[in-house]
Every structure is written in C-alpha cells, then in structure tokens.
C-alpha cells in the first residue's frame, strides 16, 4: 500500500518567537525553520511500515510558499520516495483549505493510509487530519501511539484523557501522530545527498481547483500578559508558611 505523509514547514521548535510590534503577526524573517516535529514522527512511522514490508511507497506532500521544498527534501532525506509541493503565495494556509488540497492529492495518488502530525507547533490548531478524514469520508485514528495495519483495516492505539483507547479502522484511513508513536531518525549524509535526486512534483491550489481564501480574519497578534518572577525561599518550612499566607493550602 501507498502512504501519503503531509508535512509542514514551521518555525523551529527551539526558536523563541517574537511578536511584531505593530500586532500584525509573528516575526518570520531570518528565523530558523524546520519540519513540524509531529510530522517527523509521521514520516518515521510511514518509513517503518515500508521497512516492515507493509507499505510499498511513501510520498511526502507539503503546502506552502518558497522554500517549502526544503521541508519536503527533509522527508526525502529521511527516506520518503518522492514529494509533492502545492505551491502557494503565502504561508499560514488555514487547516480547512489544506485539508481540501490534500483531498485532491489523495484522489490523484490513491494512498491506503495518510499519516499526519496531530498538530502544528505554529498555529496549534489540531484540525487538518480530522478535516481530511471528514472530507474523504474516511475513518480517523487521532493522537496515535501505535499503528498496526492488518488485512483491510488498521488498528490504532490512541492517547486519550486518562489513558489509551484502541480502535480498528477500515482502510483507507487517516492517522495523526502523538509523541510516543516513535522516535524519528536523523537523515544520514549519504541519504541527504540521495534525496537531492528524488523527484518533487509541483502543483498549485488553482490547478487543483481549490479556493484557499482564509475564512477567519486575524485582527491582531499580541504578546501574552507577562508573568514576573516572585521570591526565593530558603527552606520547605518557609515555603509552607508562604503558601499558607497565599491562601492555597
């Protein structure tokens, strides 16, 4: 079976972001960008299924403006077979529009499984996988900590409040990844070199016939209310006294 893995280019996990003074957004010029960490887990899971002989091909797809191909190239260096780049003018395409674009790609490619990160660490929406499942009429196994394909189905263990839930989904299906699913590999130098020769097909929202105009108007982006440090105490006794005074004990 073929696996499609959508990946997103986001501000690197370790970067402390800055809000623009005029409230128009977050400073993205000259900022280190990386693949969304949950998407790395998605790529890794697809590669493991291929290495186990379950999957035949892993296709990485990304939606975004210039340099988005770098993120697709990262997936290829990890081991994905080829890439698809849906080129846009702007970054920050809303999850509903991304899901509509991905639906078109799924219809072209015919994967049995689409594995996505559960949430992107920039907009923190946690929507795209569920929306894609809805648009395709497919089942969804979100927040996966284990993925076990069987004949015509896939068993997904999900991280839920209070513990784990296991569901069996008819294939084709959507899976979104949680942290404990796997530990993604680093791309080796030879594989980075090899990835340069792997193909990345390009398309656009217009070619796919999808309207990506935003549905939500962002009125402003501001710094959160600050919180300043308090005092240092010297002992457990002093701490308990202070907590009593603060009325929390």
């Amino acid at each position: 079976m073929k696996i499609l893995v959508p990946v997103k280019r986001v501000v690197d996990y370790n970067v402390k972001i800055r809000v623009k003074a005029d409230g128009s957004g977050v400073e993205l010029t000259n900022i280190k960008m990386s693949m969304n960490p949950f998407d790395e887990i998605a790529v890794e899971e697809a590669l493991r299924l291929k290495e186990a002989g379950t999957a035949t091909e892993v296709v990485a797809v990304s939606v975004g403006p210039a340099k988005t191909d770098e993120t697709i190239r990262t997936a290829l260096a990890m081991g994905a077979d080829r890439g698809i780049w849906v080129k846009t003018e702007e970054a920050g395409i809303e999850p509903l529009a991304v899901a509509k674009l991905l639906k078109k790609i799924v219809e072209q490619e015919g994967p049995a499984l689409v594995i996505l990160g559960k949430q992107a660490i920039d907009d923190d929406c946690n929507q795209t996988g569920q929306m894609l499942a809805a648009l395709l009429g497919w089942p969804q196994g979100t927040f996966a900590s284990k993925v076990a394909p069987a004949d015509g189905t896939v068993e997904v263990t999900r991280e839920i409040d209070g513990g784990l839930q296991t569901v069996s989904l008819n294939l084709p299906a959507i899976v979104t990844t949680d942290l404990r699913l796997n530990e993604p590999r680093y791309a080796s130098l030879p594989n980075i070199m090899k990835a340069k020769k792997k193909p990345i097909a390009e398309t656009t929202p217009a070619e796919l016939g999808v309207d990506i105009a935003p549905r939500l108007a962002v009125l402003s982006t501001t710094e959160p209310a600050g919180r300043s440090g308090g005092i240092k105490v010297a002992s457990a006794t002093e701490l308990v006294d202070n907590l009593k005074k603060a009325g929390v004990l």
Partner: protein
Amino acid sequence: MATLLLAEHDDATLNPVTARALTAALALGAPVHVLVVGAGADAAAQAAAKLDGVAEVLLADAPLYAHRLAEPVAALIVSLAGDYDAILAPSTAVGKNVLPRVAALLDVMQVSDIIKVVAPDTFERPIYAGNAIQTVRSGEATKVITVRTASFAAAGEGNSAAVRPVAVAADPALSRFKGEDIAQSDRPELASARLIVSGGRALGSQENFHAVIEPLADALGAAVGASRAAVDAGYAPNDWQVGQTGKVVAPDLYVAVGISGAIQHLAGMKDSKVIVAINKDEDAPIFQIADFGLVGDLFQIVPELTAEIAKAKG
C-alpha cells in the same frame, strides 16, 4: 438561534470541564443546549441539567455512542447542526477529535482552543505554545469552536433544565472500538484539579518519580503532572503531560519539581494562580515565572516539604 455545547463525561459523571466550557458558550449570548452523547448516559445528562444557564439538555443515548468515536458522534452533531449557529466543545481528547470533523463536514473553519470570547464572532486564541495571542473573527454561518477550559471559570449549579432525547443518526460504520486502558486513580483529575504537583527529567527514573512526586501530591490532595521530558524518558504516562502538546492547566497551586521550564511546558501551566518551583539550577527559566522558588536538591527538599505539608494539614 442557539448554541450547542458538547458535554465531556463518562456516562456516569459529568466532567467539570463542561461547566467551564459552558461559561464560554454562554458568553456568545444565545440560549445554550448541552449535548450528552453516550450509552447509558442519563446520570451525566441529569448533572448537565443542573448547570446554571443551560436552556435544555439533549441526550443521544445508544450503544453506537458508547465510546464516543469521532465518526458517529460527528455525524450526530452534523444532523443537529441546522438548529444552531455555534457548536462548542471543551478541548479534551474527545472534543479535539470530533469537532474538526464536524467543522469540515459543515465546510467551516474551526476556531481552536479559545481563551476569551471578545464578541459572539470574535475570539482570542493562543498560537506558538501561548507565546502569542491571536484575535480572530469568524464570519462562518456556523461557528465551530473548541474551548481551553482552564481559561474560563465554571458555571454554577442550581438549575433544572429539561432533558430531551434526540434521535440516533446514521452509523458511518467506518471504525470499531477494540479496547481501552484507563489508569485508575483516586487523585483529582489533572485537567480540572485545584492543586497540581509536576515532575521533570531531574527525577531521573520512574521509581524516583513514584517515590518523590506522588507522596507530595497525596499529602496535598493534588493531581500529578509531568513535563514532556519526563514523559519522553518514560518516568510518567503521557496523559500526565502538561504543556503545549499535552494538557493546559490553571490550578490554584502548581508545584514544578525538577522542571527547567521550557517554553512548551510554560505554555501549559503559566496561568496557574501560584507557581512553586524546586530546582537545583538557580538560573532555570522556571524561576522567572515562579511566585516561590526553592533552589536545591529536590531529593532532599521534596520529602521535607511533604512532611511539612502533612504536619500543616495535621
């Protein structure tokens, strides 16, 4: 028109986050109907009917809804959606799973994880792990919204709204429940706890986590949380994780033990009323937001603190 709020519950009891999400739903200004979806969920529906401000409780009770799987629950909500101009759910595992599916089926863009209702169509929501706050306006015909419940006070109790059964929607028959493994605990639930003790990587092992963090939590009557680093290292289960990709909490007291304070962790707890940090590194970022900091060896300090609290509670 009216607002529909999906209740969080386990059939027998209503989760307190529902009362918090209700406060957000009421802020939209329209009558609020609470939807209880389950199998044998009458007790949860009766509890929802007691919440102040609820106009009506809708009860969808059928074996199909026993485990609140996304496919049948989303189909049910879509079957009811025509009567509502807003559909809300708390940002729980169920809400986060189901609502985006509903939004896409209705062809609307969801507003995730709101922390404030500015106007019935305008909301504040955190992005970048809470390091920026976006104000967004939705022009969608049906607003689909998940609510970060830590940011809203709980609605009171004293109501007796009517409970109305609703028809079961068609079963999409795409998925089946196979099993679940839910940890049994007498401790308060993390998402709604008044007191929380969290441990980080400095604990060093699962045994230490158990031996150091849990007695302090039990002395306080607190829930137990953990940093992502502690979860990744296998010291604590994933559903204890506090942070950007785990649970977001705002208890009266948050005690961070051996947690350095990565921005992703702070995103999950910085709205706590009182924050205590215990860490041997006096430059750890956690001290920049802690009300009370204690620099030193947690393996010495925490047992002392546990004894002091046991004494204080006498």
